[in-house]
């Protein structure tokens, strides 16, 4: 009977630590993959915005490039989207003010980990506000206005019995 009782030494042997290590490594890997592989959509917004009671006017003309990708031109009230992975990004903005003076601003920003879609306000960025100010959570217009999306009523999907057992003519 004495064989069946494992002493503490038997449990905490090398194998135990290696296993623990492997589990930790796998969990760390998972966290890393989550951060690394998560895709974010950045809506770069060039429109007049009001933050903390201060109004920032839209830029008259701007050329923006994120992470050195192809630059895009922005006139006032433009919104373009960029899909990026990871959290930390660089942004490079060339803009003109009313007097056609060109300025070049380069900066870094990081997207909150669990935000899939964020809005980056160019005027706020150029004005040199903090990261938490010029990056805001993306709220769909319809939801903002309190409307139903219309999708809701049409797309209520019904799961029927056949679907539960699978279609026998499916491809494989």
């Amino acid at each position, binding site marked *: 009977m004495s064989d069946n009782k494992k002493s503490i030494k038997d449990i905490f042997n090398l194998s135990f630590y290696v296993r623990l290590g492997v589990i930790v490594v*796998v969990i760390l*890997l*998972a966290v890393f*993959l*989550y951060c*690394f*592989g*998560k*895709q*974010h959509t950045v809506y770069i917004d060039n429109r007049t915005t009001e933050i903390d009671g201060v109004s920032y006017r839209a830029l008259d003309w701007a050329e923006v490039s994120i992470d050195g990708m192809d630059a895009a031109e922005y006139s006032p009230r433009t919104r373009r989207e960029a899909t990026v*992975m990871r959290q930390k990004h660089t942004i490079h903005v060339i803009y003109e003010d009313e007097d056609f003076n060109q300025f070049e601003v380069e900066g870094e920003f990081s997207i909150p980990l669990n935000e*899939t879609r964020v809005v980056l306000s160019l005027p706020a960025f150029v004005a040199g506000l903090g990261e938490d100010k010029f990056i805001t959570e993306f709220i769909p217009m319809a939801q903002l206005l309190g409307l139903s*999306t219309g*999708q*809701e009523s049409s*797309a*209520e*999907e019904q*799961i029927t019995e056949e*679907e*539960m*057992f*699978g*279609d*026998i*003519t*499916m*491809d*494989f």
Partner: protein
Amino acid sequence: MRRNIKEFNIREFAINNIVPIIFIVLCIICIPLAGYSGQYLVSQIITRIMRNSFLVLSLLIPIMAGMGLNFGMTLGAMAGQIGIIFITAWNVVGIPGLLLAAIIATPIAVLLGWFCGKMLNMAKGREMITSYMISFFMNGVYQLVVLYGMGPVIPIESDQVILPRGYGVRNTIDLINVRQSIDTFWQISIGGINIPILTIIFIALLCVVIIWFRKTKLGQDMRAVGQDMEVAREAGIKVERTRILAIVISTVFAAYGMIIYLSNMGTLNTYNSHSQIGMFSIAALLVGGASVSKASIKNVFLGIILFHLMFILTPQAGMKLMGQAQIGEYFRVFVSYGVITLALVLYEIRTRREKAESAKQLAGLQKEGAKA
């Protein structure tokens, strides 16, 4: 006398390989009927080998442990799908996304496999029907989790994944962000046919793992348990535990296989992608000449090639022959089920015939005695 032996061998060979032979004949008939170009067929076959071989390979280990065809591999597929649902909801893309899905799927698959193994230990001698029913039962549990649990109980927020009503996962999920990310990561083109090297590396790796596994102590124990549980038990092998491990390993591989499969397909049918996977994988393996008690890597690849050739050809052949593609579609379903039935029946009959051999020997002995 010599000639006799040779004839006997050919007949024996034909009987033992009746399923692959039927398929080869079927494909030979269908190729001219369907009228596809060789290049198209080859590229299709390659795509499908890449898509499915991981799934089919996952069946090998339970066969080695004498537990028959693991219809419970559907459980692994479910685990893989849950992983995929999570990464899609989180918007983790590309190969990192798939890796993350695999990491999420692993503990779920281990748990499900353990449950399945426990159940099968309670139903020794009828593992196959039981694993089949387990897949049905767990399908219900999966529906419960995915259709009602995801959203309110398991926190998932994503319009891409969750139904507009606020809970439950959509019927189909577009996997655009992970679609073929493994295949296109490193791909070379030979004669207009794209060959995904990374996928091939993965599959080759699994083959190596299986070959290596056969050489381990655990692999040896599984073969022992598969041949005779009582003898293995007497020798001190933990039979029950070994059987559970076989199912767990199979389930985990099936989960990875499902992730590869889905990433290749590019869409997830939340409620039925998994349900037919087990059936098709098993049919493919049997088409390759495997039986309930014996299967090798060779069977897997031959099986996938033949089975999918038929899969690609029949709708077109049906179209040309009968004017209805649907006939071909039903035909391939019929063939899949038919192959499984035939293989199971042949296996039973063969086992029976072996048992009857000893009586013949005795009768022979008696005759010899009478002569002498």
